[in-house]
């Protein structure tokens, strides 16, 4: 580098600014809230336990976990092979939906959709281009993913 240019660079004024950090899409507010709403909307009575929410959120989050869960329900995996992570981000997503008056928490650790929540669910559900794979996954396991079955999985009991 010519010395004149180097001097110019070194002597000139400069400032430092913090570069914002990239964030995985599933840690975005909107994504997390939409996932909670989708899970509840596709649950019996638009209502689910926190345990089920955690289970469904964990299994829907990545392609690998989705495949793993499908295999589990198909009998290709044992319940002890499935390690469900209870994630703090999901708790935060639930809190935000609660604050937005979409999902009240009931006693005994259950969450359900309010009327506004159901309307939000309809909107998200109807939008064809949003969360396509997650919706497909929920549809695929809907019949099997009941509270009872999920309880068994979390206790590592045999499914059949």
């Amino acid at each position, binding site marked *: 580098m010519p010395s004149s240019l180097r001097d110019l660079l070194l002597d000139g004024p400069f400032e430092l600014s913090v570069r914002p950090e990239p964030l995985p899409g599933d840690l975005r507010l909107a994504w997390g809230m939409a996932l909670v709403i989708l899970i509840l909307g596709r649950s019996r009575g638009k209502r689910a336990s926190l345990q089920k929410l955690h289970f469904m959120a964990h299994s829907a989050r990545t*392609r690998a976990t989705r495949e793993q869960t499908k295999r589990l329900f198909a009998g290709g995996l044992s319940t002890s092979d499935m390690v469900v992570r209870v994630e703090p981000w999901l708790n935060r997503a639930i809190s935000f939906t609660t604050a*937005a008056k979409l999902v009240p928490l009931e006693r005994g650790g259950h969450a359900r959709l309010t009327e506004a929540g159901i309307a939000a669910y309809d909107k998200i559900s109807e939008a064809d281009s949003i969360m396509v794979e997650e919706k497909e996954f929920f549809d695929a396991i809907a019949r099997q993913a009941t509270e009872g079955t999920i309880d068994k999985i979390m206790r590592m009991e045999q499914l059949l």
Partner: protein
Amino acid sequence: MTLRIRHLRLRAETASGTFGADIPFALGLNVLWADNTKGKSTCLQGLLYALGLERMLSPRREIPLTYVMTSHLDDPDTGAPRTVLESSVSVELENAFGDVITVLRGVKSAQDRRLVTVSKGPVLSEPAARYERQDYFVHDPGAAQREAGFHRMLADFIGWELPGVRRFDGSETTLYLETIFPLLYVEQKAGWSSMPAAFPNYLQIRDVGRRAVEFIMSLDTHELELKRQQLDLQLAECTSAWTTERNEMLSVAGLANARLQGIPTAPTISIGDIETSFLLAPDRDDWRSLEEMASILRDRVADMLAAEVPEVEDLSEAAAVELDNLIKLASEQNARRNSLFRARQTEVAQRLSVARRLAALQEDLQKNLDAQKLRNFGSKIADTFAPDYCPTCSQSIQDTLLAQQASAAVMRVEDNIEYIRSQRTIFQRLSAQADTAILNIDRRLAAATNEVNETNARLRALRADLVAPSHSPSTAAIEERLPTESRLQTMEDVQQRFEEQKISLVSIAERYAELLAARRALPDDRLSEQDRAKLDRFTHIIRQQADQYGFSTFPARDIDISPENFRPQKEGFEIGFELSASDAIRLKWAYHLALMELSRRDATNHPGFVVFDEPRQQATREISFQALLERASEAKSHKQQVIFATSESRERLSGFLANLDCSFLAFDGYILTRLS
């Protein structure tokens, strides 16, 4: 081009008597009223079923009717369930010439459900007379084209000449009725949520929505579009022929461990490029053109042929020395081959990790895109969806589900998407590099293996010489000559085939250039002047209605119809999610009526009837249908027909209809009742 629905009849036979419904439809506006779940949709879907159009709703071969028509119904007197023994739907239709036919199709019946019986007369309204009857079939391959196909018959009856269209695989077919009727029949579920309509895709017709609208509006663009599609298809064929030929060249080059230089993966129209392309073969650690390698080898073979085969005695000392050298050479060659092999394994591992990273990036990109869309639509989803502030304490918050205080500044989702995309580009490039590197290593590995084999053969020959009688001819000298000759032969063969293949590539390139020129010669504008005028009038009718109906998301004059796909748009952007539910209904109503109204002045293929099955209750709560119905009632003076099924409060509805000329078909209980 007219189709009028005169009468619909549903019948269900049970052990306790016959149940059924008879609904006469008049010209102009028909309002079919009954409470929810009393059978309105069953009736209207019965109409579709009678016409063999149920696969417009779902490609599955199931009957779109409720259990009342397919399995059992509750006896209104006793409340006991009664099994349906036999049921059917029939409909009376009239065309522009005043011809009337009656179509009968069994729902639960001993007859094949694919059979449709057509009587040539008004069986339902004038049952006394006798009419000629004929059976047609639906859903079988050819139902739309063959004489005995019901849809062919129905299209003829309406006066439609169905246009040819292309499938995704390039084959030709006619535009099926199932793809046209979504423009005439707005069904309760998917019908209201898509614009212009929910077209079935299982028929594999390209741009099916566009084709259907073009047909209904009878636009000239159709022919041009067909030609364009045909050219596209031929261009695609050319590309695939090119790829096949190039792959062939690659495999031929592989015979001499050579690689292709100067032939792009996609067709080029520069013939000079093809002619100057050549093959490169590995020469130890370097690459050299195959022609050059062959010429060196040719000289060596000539030298060998010129010399006589020496005897063992003359060579024994030299052979001993050469043996020592060769042993060293063999170990060097093996080492080189091993290092190539290791390099290959490294590259393969690299490619695998890049592929994994790419998959993860793709997944994350999708989630960020979802998050972006959800955020943009936030206020439509709920009042406070993904807000910038805490809904409880109103402090500003970051767009993250990590602990708020723990995270540094979070990248905006738009920037994040860009960031992931640029990363993805880098990894895609890395992946392509790894592919090329592996291919080149494979070539060199093959060449190195050849060298090792040759050295080993020579070693064996020399050892044989050293233990042979002194006057026998040297095996080593012969062994060296034969493989060299055969290698030369291979190289020459490969070179010759390569030259031949270049000629066929040139002919593909010439054809490709011709097709590109033909494509350029097609006019840029898809629509003729006449088409444009028609589309302008169509847009005008839609705007006029939007104004009349109180469309409020944005000014009605901003609504445009895309000349590309005929979807409504605003300033070049498709109108979709941002519409309020009631405006979506207004726009949908306006679009379908406009298609019909257009035919009052312009020559179109619209048959002059529209059926609206009211959208689900939730969406209609805040809309007043008065203005919509007023507009629809104009149909009568133009000899057109609108059928609207609703469960709106009867009082409100009577208010709307008080001063309208319409046929009000009200059912107080179930539409299907016991018949005397």
